[in-house]
Structure formats: C-alpha cells, structure tokens
C-alpha cells in the first residue's frame, strides 16, 4: 500500500464522484477531500500487518452456497414492481434518454 499512499486530490475526488454518480457541490469539495484523506491515512495503518501468506476472508459463515431448484416461483407482479416508480408508462419504467 505504501507506494500508493493516497494523497487524494480534488481531481481524484471528481473522478470518484463521477464513478459513484454523486453530485458534489464545488463549495464542499475541498472539505470532502480533506476528510477523505484523513480517513485514508487512518486505514493505511494496515500496511504494518504482514499478510503475504494470508488468504482473504471470503465469508464468515462457514457454509457452502445453497442451490435453488429451477422453478418459476416469482414474477407476474408488474403492478407491484412499478408501484413506487417515479415515472412509468404502459408498463415500462421511464427515464431521461441516455446520450449514446
């Protein structure tokens, strides 16, 4: 981690905000950058821990992924699916167009 010591700058913050589709007002960008840097510096202490022979922890449960039978047990609930939609039309969700 040490050769990627995170000095997150505003440009990176912009990039991350874009990836996360978050609109961050200009006025809060500097503050946010500082806060993020503090947090990232805090978590950087994991550098101290020797983990070269350690496997990442996949799950704490200890059981295997359960498998489901191939049956149609769901669906046919268009009304419920669309019930909370901010905009819908003729059974479709409606969104502003993507620029493709």
């Amino acid at each position: 981690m040490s050769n990627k010591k995170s000095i997150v700058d505003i440009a990176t913050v912009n990039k991350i905000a874009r990836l996360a589709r978050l609109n961050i007002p200009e006025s809060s960008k500097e503050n946010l950058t500082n806060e993020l840097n503090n947090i990232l510096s805090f978590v950087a202490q994991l550098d101290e821990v020797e983990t070269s022979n350690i496997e990442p922890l996949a799950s704490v449960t200890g059981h295997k992924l359960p498998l489901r039978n191939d049956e149609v047990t769901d669906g046919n609930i268009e009304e419920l699916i669309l019930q909370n939609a901010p905009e819908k039309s003729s059974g479709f969700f409606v969104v502003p167009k993507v620029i493709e």
Partner: protein
Amino acid sequence: MSDLLKFDLLQASKAIKNKEFSSVELTNAYIEAIENTSSLGAYLEIVKDHALNMAKISDKNISDGVSRPLEGLPIGVKDMFCTKGIKTTASSKILDNFYPTYESTVTQNLWDDGAVMLGKLSCDEFAMGSSNETAAKGNVKNPWLLCKEVSPGGSSGGSAAAVASRSALAATGTDTGGSIRQPAAFCGITGLKPTYGRCSRWGIVAFSSSLDQAGPLTRTVGDAALMLNSMAGYDNKDSTSANLKMPNLMDYLDKGVKGKKIGIPKEYTQDGISDDIVKFYDTSISWLKDAGAEIIPVSLPHSKYALPVYYIIAPAEASSNLARYDGVRYGVRKEGKNLDDMYELTRGNGFGEEVKRRIMIGTYVLSSGYYDAYYLKAQKVRRLIKQDFDNVFEKVDFILTPSTPTTAFALGEKLDPLTMYLNDIFTVPASLAGLPGISLPVGLDKSGLPIGMQLIAKAFDEVGLISTAQVLEKSAGFNFIADGAAK
C-alpha cells in the same frame, strides 16, 4: 395507564396471557408514551390504527386460548426493515416516498408470533453512524440527561431511545459494526447482535452485506432472548442465512456461569477509555468470578486493526449496495437533462454527507489500482482478526469487554468523522468475525450516564451468551430509569 409501562417484555407477555390487562390497553399506553416522549425524535412513523388492529387480533387470540410467543406485545421497528405498505426510508431523503410492497423476513417473523407494531424508528442514514445524527429528519435525543441533549448512539439510536424511554416495549435494530450494542450501552438497555447468519437479511435495507445483522434492543437480557427466538431462523431467500435451528432460548435462562471460562483481552484496556468504564470493567470481572466463572487473560493481537479493516470493507460494500438508489424504479428522483445527470442530482441531493463520504471511500478503495492495497488487504487482515478469536475461543467460552470507550457524548460534540468512527472500537471486532455479542447496562458514570459491558460468544452460541449475560445482569442489578422516560 402509565403503570402498564413498568412491565418488561417477559412480564408483559405473562400478564397479557393471564389476562391481567389487554393488548389494546398496553398498546394504548405505549402510544401515549410515544406522544409524551416525542421530543426525543425517536419515531419517524407512528402507525396507531394499524397497531390497535393488531392488538385487537391479539386480544381475540388470547381469549380464544391460542396465543403466540409475542402475542399482543407492542414493539418498534428500525426504519431499515422494509414493512409492507408502511413507509420505509432508512432515515434518508432518497427514500422519503418509498412504500415497500413486501415485509422483511425478520419483522414478518415477529408479526407471525403475535407482536404489535407501533411504528418505524429513526436511525443514522442507511445505518451509517454512531450517534443518530445523520438521520434526514433530525437528531434523536438520548432520554438520559435530557437537558444535556446527549446522543443515544447509533446507528440504532431511535430504537435504543425508544426502549430506554419506555415508548416501545422492545425494538428491532441492525448491527454492522456495533449499531445495536453501542446505542444500547449509551441508553442503559440491552442490545444483542446475533451470529452472522442467525437472522435473515432479506428485506432489510443492505448497508454492508458481510456484516449486517438484525437483533433486538430490550430492557433485559431475558427480553432479548424472547425477541431473538422469534426474529431468528433460516431463510432460503438469503444465501448467507445459516441453516441451523436455534434452540428455544427460554429453556436456557438463568443457567449460571459455574465452570465457564471468561477471557479478558489485554488489548481492550488502553488509553482513551473513561475511568468509570475501566472501574466497571474490573467490577464486572469480579462479579463473574464470584458467580463461579474462571477469569483468563487472553490476547487478540490484531484488535487495533479492526477499525481500519471495517472502514475499508463496510464502505466498499455500501458503495455497491447503494448503487440501486438511482431514482429509476423507486425513491425521490431529481430530474436531469439526461440519465447520468439525473443519477448525479438524485443521489447528490438524496444522500446525506456521511453516506456520501462512505460511498466515496468505498468507491475509491475498490477502484482500479487500489483494490489490492485496500480491499484485498483488509480482507486478509480480517482473516487474522477472526483467527485471533478462534484461537482465544479454544481456551475460553466467552469474552468480556467494555461496550464503548466512553459514555454518551453530547449531540454535536463529535463533528469529525474519524473521531466518530473510534466509538466502534470495541464492537467492530466481533462484527468482523461474525460472532454474537451482547451489551447490557452495569452502572452509571459520574455524570449519571449508563455504562454497558459487552460479552462475545462463539459462533452460534447465543444460548451461552444469554446465560452468561444474565449472571452479569443479576450481579449489576441495574434498575435505573432514564429521566426522559415516559411515566
């Protein structure tokens, strides 16, 4: 009517079944209590008519002689649980218009067992926080030292405040890094986080999937056992749900600790813990010793890395879990000139500062070039932390620690995110290892605020956890009531 508030869950359950009073009477008492304590801001939604309907059904069941384990008992539900037809917001602006068409498995279990729903309880937004100061609709106040305006803890601050103020007989919460145990400690009540996988996560707004667990907040350990009996259970709609039957916890109450070994981790007594808490930690150790337990010093060497591990993994998972809040299929949409614009405005406007911070951290630590250094590294250290516990549990049956480094702080006192994160220092390790933990009140500090102690048990040993906690509870004899409680 307010007399009815004095009964805890187990007592009220017996009394209702004995027809000493009706569920409708009890429910009305709680509805009145909610109104009397409304300045706490614990409730986001009160469903009076719905509650009374459920209470009437319970009364009929009781008179017909067919009563269920929680028949007629009024409880509050943290607003992270989807409740069918009843607004569920995760305390966020972005879901301020969301009415689920489905019920979470855990709450359905409670209704199936006869419980009555009083309403939805405030929490930190998307369960991210340790002080209930990030709820969209405003802070929740701790009913202790009301004039001082102290935090009830978080993220289940509303749940803890409601139980402590006697405006709910019991409440559901969720615990990801301490969000049940820490507010329970701050509010002088009992809070239990079961083993990961014990309760189903289906229908609970997901924050950090490998850590989230539902659990009860109650007045007593016995109450928590009764609640957990109903809440727990295998759910085939949740792939992480444990296919193990939990024994009826009621059969294991008051079994004592004779011959049990209690581990005291040396890493948990360090700078930053308040003197009063240290004192009560020592006292708690001697209580357990007097009750016949063997006290064994142990070491959890990687404890200090638990917080950094948590603050990589939880935000990472959250950044992905919260991607679905995009204004397309539900939630409050902000119109934009195109799809991406709509996403950015909807999410930028709908999420609060702490949520945005964590999404940013999470997105960053998963991003190209940083995944190995942060996320993968954190998962490796997480394995070491779990191994520490596995090693210790070969020597002992339970681990005792303080629940929090300090008692409740004033609202607005901890504005710096990092300082806020340090609250979870004692609760996070058990979360990372997926182990069950309980916090119960053992005394008051000099200023009159409650102090909680935490017991951690082996995976799926909720039986032992309850039993041991009861011994501590009995020894401590904590019978104080918050000054802000309903009377």
